[in-house]
């Protein structure tokens, strides 16, 4: 098990959002305020860890012919649990994310990690994988959120800071509200993906230079 490698993969080189391009539906739909991004990220991370652990623990018991049905049942179970807890204990977040919490069931990141990782690796490694992929998802989501919120609403930390209104950085008459609408989601996501590609190439070049110097 290589924690550092898994972490780097989850955060950058195999980031579920910017590289694997999974879970686009929620990424584009809910990234309009910091509160939504962090809340969705936390929910997905918890579900990823739980489902990865359980699927990894059961990987030798579940016959491969029915594995997808079994995985989806397990994932749906965890998602429903999180949904119920959110509605009961953090109703503001549940209302803000709305239908996108139940939709985590069909979020390809969770099933993707179950199929690609948890079904082939040990419990501990799968838990770490869930955590790293979850963090990668959260970070990507949060970056998109911050940019869209700033350009679209002119605030930072909406729903979270300053009594829910967020800190106003741009006067209310200037922000382009298209940025909080779907078109803004596609635009910002495209730029974020480009940015992460640039960062990866940049790091690779640096590594090569280092090796050449040796």
């Amino acid at each position, binding site marked *: 098990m290589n924690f550092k490698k898994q972490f780097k993969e989850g955060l950058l080189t195999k980031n579920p959002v910017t590289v694997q391009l999974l879970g686009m539906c929620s990424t584009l739909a809910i990234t309009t305020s910091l509160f939504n991004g962090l809340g969705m990220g936390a929910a997905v991370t918890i579900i990823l860890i739980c489902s990865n652990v359980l699927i990894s623990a059961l990987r030798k018991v579940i016959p491969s012919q029915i594995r997808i049905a079994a995985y989806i049942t397990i994932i749906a179970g965890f998602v429903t649990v999180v949904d119920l807890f959110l*509605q009961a204990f953090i109703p503001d977040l549940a209302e803000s994310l709305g239908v996108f919490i139940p939709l985590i069931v069909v979020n390809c990141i969770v099933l993707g990690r179950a199929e690609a990782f948890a079904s082939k690796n040990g419990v501990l490694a799968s838990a770490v994988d869930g955590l790293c992929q979850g963090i990668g998802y959260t970070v990507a989501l949060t970056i998109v959120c911050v940019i869209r919120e700033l350009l679209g609403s002119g605030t930072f930390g909406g729903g979270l800071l300053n009594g829910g209104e967020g800190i106003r950085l741009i006067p209310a008459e200037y922000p382009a509200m298209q940025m909080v*609408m779907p078109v803004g989601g596609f635009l910002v996501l495209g730029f974020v993906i480009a940015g992460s590609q640039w960062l990866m190439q940049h790091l690779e070049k640096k590594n090569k230079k280092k090796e050449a110097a040796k």
Partner: protein
Amino acid sequence: MANQTSRKKESTVKYVLRLTFTLLLITSVVAAALAAVNAVTEPIIKQLNEQKTQQAIETVLPGGYSETIENFDDQNGLVTKVYKGANGYAMEVRPAGFDGEIVMMVGVDFEGKVLGISVVSHTETAGLGAVAAAKTEAGNAFRGQFTGKSGEILVNKDGGDIDAITGATITSRAVCVGVSAAVACAVSLG
């Protein structure tokens, strides 16, 4: 490969049964776990919803309500609940918004004038339609426009005098439709 060898050893009947029972076992365990969680969260969620409704009634109907009216005439089919108090009615209306139902509480006095409105739950776009429900300056300003209005209420684009929320005409229209339905229903009740 492991599965293929085990398949050779097992008879087909046994193999199918094993698949069936594994899946049955997994779904049963998940169902049992969900039932347990639901037993814990259900009363809390119910209480929260009740609280929200109560708060909404208090906001739109000064003095609160004393009775619930079951028989009311509603031509638009939008009014779902009517509470009667000393100062008028609080009506729960559910107009269709931009993205799903908007559940609102509308206070109307006995003369058919709006006392106030409050959004209980909605799924409008954050930053646009959601302003209608937000407890912000813009949200309060939008909802405040309805106070004192009567008859059919329209946004200024449709010839009325309600300033629609910027970029959320459909949501604003939906709120108007809901409020109008509540007023019409209150007038029919007298």
